[in-house]
């Protein structure tokens, strides 16, 4: 329904909207992809058609041209940090801006590399290039995880919120604490291991991999499992310990879910911890690069 009558007889026309979701990658029929491919082709043409002597480098005519284009692009690309904080549809929608950001950023691989003339060394010029490539590759990684992980994240969450995940673990901790009160010291110590030596998140590596080899809960569960198995072979197991084992296993499952969540969220976030600071470092290196070229012209 394109329009409807309002009280007072005024007809309000809704803005036409796409029904299907269109991501930033395919925005406007991949307009920016085409523009970037064209730009890259142009850069390659300039590189191939000019024949600087004795060999191509940043100081030739084509080198200065590509360098100027590249530097202006880098400055514009870094402005997305400002643009995304301003909510507006003009002059570009944020989606259009993001689309351009991604594709123009990727075309910098071609423009930047040709600007170097394939000459790299231990100097401030190559530093700029390396930082630029780190930014681009981290951004590429960001696009890949943004395309793949949200669906997995949602499936893993299974309608539970983050506080609910934590609360489930805390509840199990309280139950364990209570259930362990009548136990002897050895068994109580095992439960303490689960309560006190078990971190949900961990350090950066544990977050990225989701692997917690020293997890106290896991060790406690394995130990209690051994005791219970032994008791089962020799007769009737201690019901209190069986109860503890049941709780430890439930906690293990709750931890696994939370940690999968953390792993995917970390993977979704980590690239920005590289992309953004290295972009700033790149802008600094660009200033040093350009300034030093003309200081020692």
């Amino acid at each position, binding site marked *: 329904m394109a329009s409807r009558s309002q009280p007072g007889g005024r007809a309000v026309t809704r803005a036409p909207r796409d029904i299907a979701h269109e991501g930033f990658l395919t925005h406007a029929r991949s307009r920016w992809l085409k523009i970037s491919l064209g730009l890259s082709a142009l850069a390659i043409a300039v590189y191939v058609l000019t*024949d600087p*002597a*004795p*060999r191509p*480098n*940043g*100081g030739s*005519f084509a080198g200065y041209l590509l360098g100027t284009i590249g530097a202006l692009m880098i400055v514009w690309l870094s402005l997305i940090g400002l643009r995304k904080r301003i909510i507006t549809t003009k002059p570009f929608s944020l989606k259009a801006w993001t689309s351009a950001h991604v594709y123009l950023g990727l075309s910098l691989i071609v423009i930047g590399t040709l600007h170097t003339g394939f*000459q790299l*060394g231990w*100097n*401030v*010029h190559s*530093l700029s290039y390396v930082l630029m490539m780190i930014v681009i590759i981290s951004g590429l990684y960001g696009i890949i995880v943004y395309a793949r992980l949200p669906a997995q994240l949602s499936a893993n969450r299974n309608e539970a919120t*983050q*506080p609910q995940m*934590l609360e489930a673990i*805390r509840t199990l*901790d*309280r139950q364990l*604490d209570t259930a*362990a*009160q*009548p*136990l*002897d*010291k050895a068994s*109580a*110590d095992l*439960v303490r291991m689960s309560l006190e030596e078990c971190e*949900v*998140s961990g*350090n*950066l590596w544990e*977050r990225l991999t989701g692997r917690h080899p020293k997890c106290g809960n896991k060790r406690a569960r394995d130990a209690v499992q051994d005791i219970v198995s032994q008791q089962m072979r020799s007769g009737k197991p201690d019901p209190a310990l069986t109860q503890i084992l049941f709780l430890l296993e439930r906690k293990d499952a709750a931890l696994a879910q*939370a940690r999968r*969540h*953390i792993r995917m*969220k*970390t993977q979704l*976030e*980590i690239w*920005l*911890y590289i992309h953004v*600071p*290295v*972009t*700033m*470092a790149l*802008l*600094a*290196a660009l*200033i*040093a690069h350009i300034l*030093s*070229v*003309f*200081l*020692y*012209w």
Partner: protein
Amino acid sequence: MSFVVRQISKRADGGDIIRTRTLEAPEITIGRGTDCDIQLPDLGVMLRHAKLTQLASGLVAIEATGGIPLEIAGKFLNRADLSVAETPEINIASHRLTLAPGEAPGAIAITAERVIAASDAADAAAETDIFSLRGAMPTKRTMAWALVALVFIIGLAWPLTEMIGRSPTLPADMVAAAARPANDGKGNKLTPALSAEAEAAHRGAFKPDVVWTSGPLSTAHAGLSRNCGSCHQQAFVATTDSSCVACHKPSVVPDHASAQRMAKGRLVPTGLGAAEAGIHNAFNLPEGRCASCHKEHEGPDGALMVAQSFCTDCHTGLSARLSDTKISNVSNWEDHPQFKATVVRAASATTPVFERVSLAGKASEQSGLLYPHDLHMSRTNSVANMVLKQGLPAKNGALSCNYCHTSDSDGVRFKPIEMEKACGACHDLAFAKDGPIVRTLPHGKPEQVAGIIRDFYLSQALSPRAGVQRLAFERRQPGRMAELELSGLRFASPAEARVRADAAIDSIFAKNGVCADCHVIRRTGASDAARRYEVAPVSLADHYLPKGRFPHNQHDSYDGKTGDAACVACHKGVPGSKASTDVLLPKVEQCRDCHGSPKVSTNVAASCNTCHGFHYGEGGQGGDYGPAKPKPATIAGAKAGKPGSGPALAGMPAGVASASGGAGAALARRFGG
């Protein structure tokens, strides 16, 4: 005898809940077990952890019953007697028991409370720390500032301190090395000036501004790698020629041509090229600077890697812009004009005339010498016999090229030909034997010859000595150097000796005499024998193509051939050449067989500087014997009738043949007098 137990637990909102009980017993138990008098819900506490016994009024004993020592006043004890008046504290896991005198007489108050909070108090802030990277990493902003600061310090501030505070000095031995001629004629080419050690010494300590380098310096300049200021003298001003000429003096590296002629000859760019030139000029980077061609920071060979296009930029259609130029237009190697050899047009003892002649047609020259190459390279004639008998270097009797044409010290070209060395083995000028001493006529001094012969005959007439023999130059068996005794060397009078002497002189200079083998002799008609004959002067070109370099030693083997075969592979006309007027140089097409031809697999270099040099001065000849010294061919010749004026026959080029067809027969002849 009572214990008043006050157990304090925390409420969720932070308040305390205090439960007080009074236990009438001399002994109470403490532990996690539900049967204990004081129950502590703490998994760190044993089921039966300790026992408290009242010993006397105000004195209690505490004893660990669970096997874990108790912490009392910082010590871990299994048993202790405690005075209640001192309000002792006992730590058990996360709990603390404090003893104090009770209100009732003899009663002991025990306060039990948790002093280490249970570990389940996670709040909203903890959630963010757990689920976002904020808990594991510094913030993006912190990292950004840190990296920016690091980059600015290393990449800008630190090098700037070096740039501002420096006072560069040029290494003296590098300056001295740069003052050496590019090629001193002794084979010393312009090579890296310094030893590796000296270079390392110049590099010196690390300088922070090397992070600004755009690439490694060329080998010759490597010693300046940490001396940026020696070239980059002024901020925001491109390296100027003055930096270069500080070491490379114009006397050593002369200009190609005057700046004014160079500017006039340069192609005026159009279109994009014009825009580029405009930008260059706007930034004070005009064409014609040293750095227009010599780009530094391009690796070991960088500064000397000059593109061919730099040459053809001007030499393509040069005549249209520089109408008075004598140089042919060249746009590339494929249309390089035919070689123009510098040949002798008129031989002279003092002022030979040279001329540049294109090799396109059949070029000829007038060196004044008679020398048929074909006779000397035959395998079957009398020359071949002579060569074999004397054991001269030859292949099947054909005299080797390098018997006469010996390479110079750097192997690029050839030493001047000396008559005595090159020709003397057969064309021997011995005329008499005085005991063991062989008397020889001086070569190149015809005016001396008449006197020597006359004196010889007269001395024999006035005071005849035994053992003196006159040797005949007449025909003899090849290889037989045996002297011929003349029985008739006895004279009735000095007058007769004089007549015989004149006859001998006539026969030496006669048409079929020994001189005429190689020289053109003219009779002047003078009555005095010393002035009667004039030997035509001989001038030999010693460098036919002086504007280029052709390193012969790099062509020792050619097309799978070596030795003489390699020589005649290019100098094709030599074995069949009957006259020294032939110019026996290969044409430019010969070079293209290997150089720059897409048709051959050995497609070797064919850029302009393979043969030519830029800084050779306006004559283009500086590459041979030092800088800018136009060097005409060596002059050699002798003129009869001008006493003392004739230098010895000195130079002989590759490919000079006899002008006289008939002279060949005279080779195996000696003439007598």
